[in-house]
């Protein structure tokens, strides 16, 4: 009895590392974190390029001839078919490859949940040789195929197609006109499609790197942007109904004053200047046009498959926090001791003996999550963790997720190598057959800052704690192509 008391009273409140399962243990690893940086000015075309690390917005693609185009279908959710939103775009070169970027897409539809197919990661690599001096040549070859002058002439003609129902309201008339214009453009583009291969990047680079963007700037006709938006519209009708809906939304959004619209419920007609956003509703590969004008337009962008974007700044992970709760814990402890001395001692001193495993009520059932959230709490703003070929920070036991696939062997917490993830879970690369290893993971603050910060965004589509991205370890695999990589969502 007294012995017990002595032990307790001599217990000091020192900082100790070897604590229990759930605590944030400092194992010496410091990964690179991506924390949010400045908001991206979406009207500035030069604000982002393939080398930026950013979250949200539209993806920036490489524009060389070597890069295979990314068609619409690839960026659609495998479960519901809607277009996916860009979560992050990370420029992550490795030694042997010059330029390498990862794009993580997710479906913002709540019903998709985290099912396979609702997330997609693309990775592209460009070798050194391809990059140097290739940008010029590639586009020089592509450019002649686009008869710029002809397209321009086309656009500037404002032909209002006579519609059968002349009793349409002005708004509808405008819509319809634009609809027809678009169709015309689309068919134009179809022709050109055969000349150039289905490669949107060329249009992008035309617009941005080679001064073509200024052409569209000058055009006051909103339809100018439609043509520039690029050709491949395989599923045309769907796209156009998308556009109409987006247009409606833009109208409603732009009806509000310059402050950000929260409720897009108004149905009154508005000016047709919101069409600069239509192209955003189109293929996500479209780079942002300089025509982005006001904040209401940017708010309307969110209905167009993109979140408001911000830069990601890299930072080293800090050490575990020194706990600030010492004082409180100490106070509780002291009051307990005071009580103990007053009350009749209950001798459980005899039951000191080993209880090396916990009682059933002592396991909370979410130790992994607690460890995860404590680790993330070292730097609460982090959106991204980068640890090439390292160990992912799991938020839930993998064996529960992949019960059928995962090996029965116990996953050791301290294992290195493939990051403690059984190879039965992560399939090898489809292109080259080599093993995939962990590279980046997204943390919940990305949802907090990107999705929820913007009140007009459809915030409730996604509900994950972390997204682990596994990429092919053989660098140089799939040069010049966009390859799919594997994703584990928790």
């Amino acid at each position: 009895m007294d012995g017990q008391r002595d032990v307790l009273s001599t217990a000091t409140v020192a900082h100790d590392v070897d604590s229990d399962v759930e605590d944030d243990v400092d194992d010496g690893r410091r990964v690179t974190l991506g924390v949010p940086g400045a908001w991206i000015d979406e009207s500035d075309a030069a604000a982002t390029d393939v080398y930026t690390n950013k979250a949200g917005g539209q993806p920036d693609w490489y524009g060389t001839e070597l890069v295979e185009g990314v068609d619409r279908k690839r960026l659609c959710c495998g479960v519901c078919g809607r277009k996916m939103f860009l979560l992050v775009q990370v420029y992550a070169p490795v030694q042997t490859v010059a330029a390498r970027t990862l794009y993580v897409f997710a479906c913002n539809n709540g019903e998709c949940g985290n099912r396979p197919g609702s997330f997609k990661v693309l990775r592209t690599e460009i070798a050194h040789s391809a990059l140097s001096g290739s940008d010029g040549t590639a586009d020089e070859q592509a450019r002649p195929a686009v008869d710029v002058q002809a397209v321009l002439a086309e656009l500037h003609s404002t032909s209002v197609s006579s519609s059968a129902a002349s009793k349409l309201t002005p708004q509808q008339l405008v819509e319809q006109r634009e609809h027809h214009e678009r169709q015309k453009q689309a068919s134009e583009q179809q022709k050109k499609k055969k000349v150039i291969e289905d490669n949107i990047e060329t249009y992008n680079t035309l617009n941005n790197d080679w001064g073509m963007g200024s052409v569209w700037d000058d055009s006051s006709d909103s339809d100018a942007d439609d043509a520039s938006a690029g050709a491949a519209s395989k599923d045309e009708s769907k796209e156009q109904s998308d556009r109409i809906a987006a247009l409606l939304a833009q109208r409603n959004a732009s009806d509000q004053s310059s402050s950000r619209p929260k409720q897009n419920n108004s149905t009154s007609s508005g000016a047709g200047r919101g069409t600069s956003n239509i192209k955003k509703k189109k293929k996500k590969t479209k780079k942002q046009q300089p025509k982005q004008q006001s904040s209401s337009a940017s708010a309307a962008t969110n209905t167009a498959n993109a979140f408001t974007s911000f830069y990601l700044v890299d930072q080293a992970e800090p050490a575990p926090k020194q706990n600030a709760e010492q004082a409180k814990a100490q106070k509780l402890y002291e009051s307990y001791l005071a009580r103990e001395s007053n009350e009749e001692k209950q001798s459980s001193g005899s039951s000191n003996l080993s209880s090396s495993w916990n009682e059933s009520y002592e396991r909370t059932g979410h130790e992994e999550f607690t460890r995860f959230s404590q680790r993330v709490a070292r730097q609460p703003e982090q959106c991204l963790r980068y640890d090439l070929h390292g160990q992912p920070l799991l938020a839930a036991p993998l064996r529960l997720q992949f019960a059928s696939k995962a090996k029965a062997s116990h996953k050791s917490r301290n294992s290195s190598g493939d990051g403690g993830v059984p190879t039965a879970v992560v399939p090898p690369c489809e292109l080259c057959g080599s093993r995939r290893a962990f590279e980046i993971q997204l943390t919940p603050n990305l949802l907090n800052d990107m999705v929820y910060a913007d009140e007009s965004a459809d915030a409730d589509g996604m509900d994950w704690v972390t997204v682990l991205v596994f990429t092919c370890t053989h660098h140089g695999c799939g040069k010049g192509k966009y390859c799919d990589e594997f994703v584990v969502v928790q």
Partner: protein
Amino acid sequence: MAEENRGGFGRGRDRGRGRGDRGRKGKGDKGGRDEWVPCTKLGRLVKDGKIKSLEEIFLFSLPIKEFQIVDHILGPALKDEVMQIRPVQKVTAAGQRTRFKTYIAVGDGDGHIGIGCKTANEVANAIRGAVINAKMNVIPIRRGYWGDKSGMPHTVPCKVTGKCGSVRARLIPAPRGSGIVASLIPKKLLTMAGIEDVYTSSTGHTRTRGNLAMAVYYALSKTYSYLSPDLWATTVLTSTPQQEFTDHLSKTNKRA
């Protein structure tokens, strides 16, 4: 292997561009590193103030994975108290490894109680961890009447019993003014739960305070799972908070 291939996230060409002020769009200043950044959807809803009471969470049996949720909702009303601290030992090759096992109860005195248990190398760590654990284990308690249904409920609605280990704890409704008729540990728990009058009866090795506390805790948790006649009426099912807010948000956003 990892070192040589250490990639260039952060070594891109446009590093300088990212840095800069981050004017948050309408969310206000953050309190630095100490402020709670929610990791779960439920946490976000709570932090944004869309969920105002724990009952909304309890109604749908949503797991509370972040203790700050409870902290945020109940706030300063939540009191914590150490039930027991005892050393436990494990025999290793280098002698014995002693750690401290702590039981802590938290409660707001008005229908919510939680018990947490944690073992750690130092007492302070154990206490801190147990408080967090307790907050995650908060449950609602149903109170009822002994006889006359006048005034506020003051006792357990029916006889309930809970067990843990060898300890059986039985709670019996008592008339107003009886007070909590129990030994020390159950008395503390029941006070924190907000029960005013109750008779108790316990059997087993009640000297194991941990087990006794857990037994009382289980008994209290049963108050809401007991189907009494006044609950016979069918209840209307509502949508979960996540669903509700999804619908709300999707209504305000026009989407294709």
